[in-house]
């Protein structure tokens, strides 16, 4: 139980913010950061803990977003139900892609390539299919009632985002302490050795991919409710695939709070860039690209890893073993 204490503390701290800060700009910024943290936590489970680097996590984000949007707009289904269905369908898509990829033994670069390709296929389909609104996109009707998962002020959205992030933290921590988590780490470190110890690598990877997709799909559903507009470039675009991997890598891949930490840093950098250079498109992503190269080159364990090396030896037991040494 004590290992869940840090999560409670962090969630409590985050939850208090709207009582101190009322600026919509700041809350909006934080909501986006939490969104990326959530999507990134999904990536983190598969990539950081599982060692399988997906370059197409937008596939799950977009699916979650489109499913909930389509259910509301075309079938009049309640938005909260849409959230659950969106997560479920996202998980299914993850399972499908995972089953195909892992059954055929795709690993490393090949796996990254195939995830990229799947995301692109979905983007192209969404840009021409009538059900997703093709080039025009989907607009969710404004209906500012809690039952419709829409709120007048930012604060309730913020708290829901905090709640979702908190849930993802609890889920990942639970996995860390489970047999599934131990097997996932083993598969990441050395798949052959894990297999020789009775680990069904395919099942483990598939499981990780499914849960990872579900978490990222949740972020997509939330996005749909927050912004009320989607098109193929937003839902399945590379921007999310990049953000979802950048946040955990910057914050520390394979660590619990890595995605949250990284998302905050990445978003702060993005906003700072926009502040100094105006709204010209592209520069913030340039900064992200440089950040990615820099972190990989100079601080491969991300912020969490860097802080861990700075921690005096006696306190190191607080960190997961993968970060304790060197």
């Amino acid at each position, binding site marked *: 139980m004590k290992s869940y204490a840090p999560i409670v503390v962090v969630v409590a701290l985050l939850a208090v913010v709207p009582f101190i800060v009322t600026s919509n700009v700041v809350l909006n910024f934080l909501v986006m950061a939490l969104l990326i943290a959530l999507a990134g936590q999904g990536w983190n489970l598969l990539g950081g803990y599982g060692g399988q680097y997906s370059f197409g996590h937008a596939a799950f984000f977009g699916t979650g977003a489109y499913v909930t949007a389509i259910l509301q707009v075309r079938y009049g289904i309640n938005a909260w139900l849409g959230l659950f269905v969106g997560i479920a369908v996202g998980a299914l898509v993850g399972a499908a892609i995972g089953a195909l990829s892992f059954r055929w033994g795709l690993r490393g670069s090949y796996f990254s390539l195939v995830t990229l390709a799947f995301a692109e296929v979905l983007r192209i389909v969404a840009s021409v299919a009538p059900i997703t609104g093709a080039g025009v996109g989907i607009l969710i009707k404004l209906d500012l009632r809690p039952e419709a998962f829409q709120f007048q002020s930012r604060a309730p959205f913020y708290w829901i985002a905090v709640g979702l992030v908190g849930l993802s933290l609890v889920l990942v921590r639970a996995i860390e302490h489970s047999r599934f988590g131990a097997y996932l780490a083993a598969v990441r*470190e050395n798949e052959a050795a894990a297999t020789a110890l*009775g680990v069904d690598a395919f099942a483990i990877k598939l499981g990780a991919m499914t849960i990872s997709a579900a978490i990222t799909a949740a972020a997509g559903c939330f996005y749909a409710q927050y912004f009320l507009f989607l098109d193929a470039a937003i839902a399945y675009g590379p921007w999310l695939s990049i953000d979802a991997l950048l946040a955990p890598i910057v914050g520390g891949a394979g660590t619990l709070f890595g995605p949250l930490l990284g998302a905050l840093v990445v978003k702060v950098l993005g906003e700072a860039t926009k502040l100094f250079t105006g709204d010209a498109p592209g520069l913030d992503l340039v900064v992200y690209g440089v950040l990615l190269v820099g972190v990989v080159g100079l601080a491969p364990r991300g912020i969490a890893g860097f802080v861990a090396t700075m921690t005096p030896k006696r306190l190191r037991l607080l960190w997961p073993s993968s970060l304790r040494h060197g």
Partner: protein
Amino acid sequence: MADTLLHIENVSKRFGGLLAVSGTSFAVSPQGITALIGPNGAGKTTLFAIISGFLRPDGGRVVYDGADLTGEAPHRRARRGIARTFQIVQPFAGLTVRENIAVGSHLAHVRRIDALAAAEEVAHSVGLGSMLDAAAGTLTVALRKRLELARALAIAPRLLLLDEVLAGLNPSEIRDMVPVIRGIASRGVTILMIEHVMQAVMSLAEHVLVLAEGRIIAQGMPHEVAADRQVVEAYLGQGAAKRMMVGLRHD
């Protein structure tokens, strides 16, 4: 069936133009230590890969405890009680020794706490008790070999395949490892070991199989096999046995 734990029936494996294992058959009785020796390139590790499920044979069957395993996935075989170590050690470098072994213990224990506790016990039984919190990537070769052994033991195997577990160890490390292996066998685990360190083979093995060019050329007790002319020739070349005999006569 009670007499044989493992039966290799007419197994062959080809890699392109190379016939690594050709129509090999042998049986391993339960309990005790059997050594599989032979010159380099004889096909020993290939056989291990086939027994543990990492390679499919082109022909023949692997029968374990009466069941035909041919084609079964490696993780299923591990669950049946076949454990193996790798010739080139494969630690989970980013995990601690305890966590490494726990991956094996998890086969029998679902809860993390139980698996970690079981891992500690196994670690102590092979002399790794003091290294439990060390990162596997920082261990010396000798300790890595021991970790490899501990991990395999953690799945509570009935058949343990040791692939050159003494290779790369200096004489004192070998001396430390031999009683560990003997201890494992005394607890009822059947051991089939590939080994080049002859002193260990002679002192540990009750039964020796000699593999050369993909087939068994001799088997029996260690001293029988050592005196076998074909075995000498396989290692030292044709005519070597005769030359040795001539040499002896002149002494």
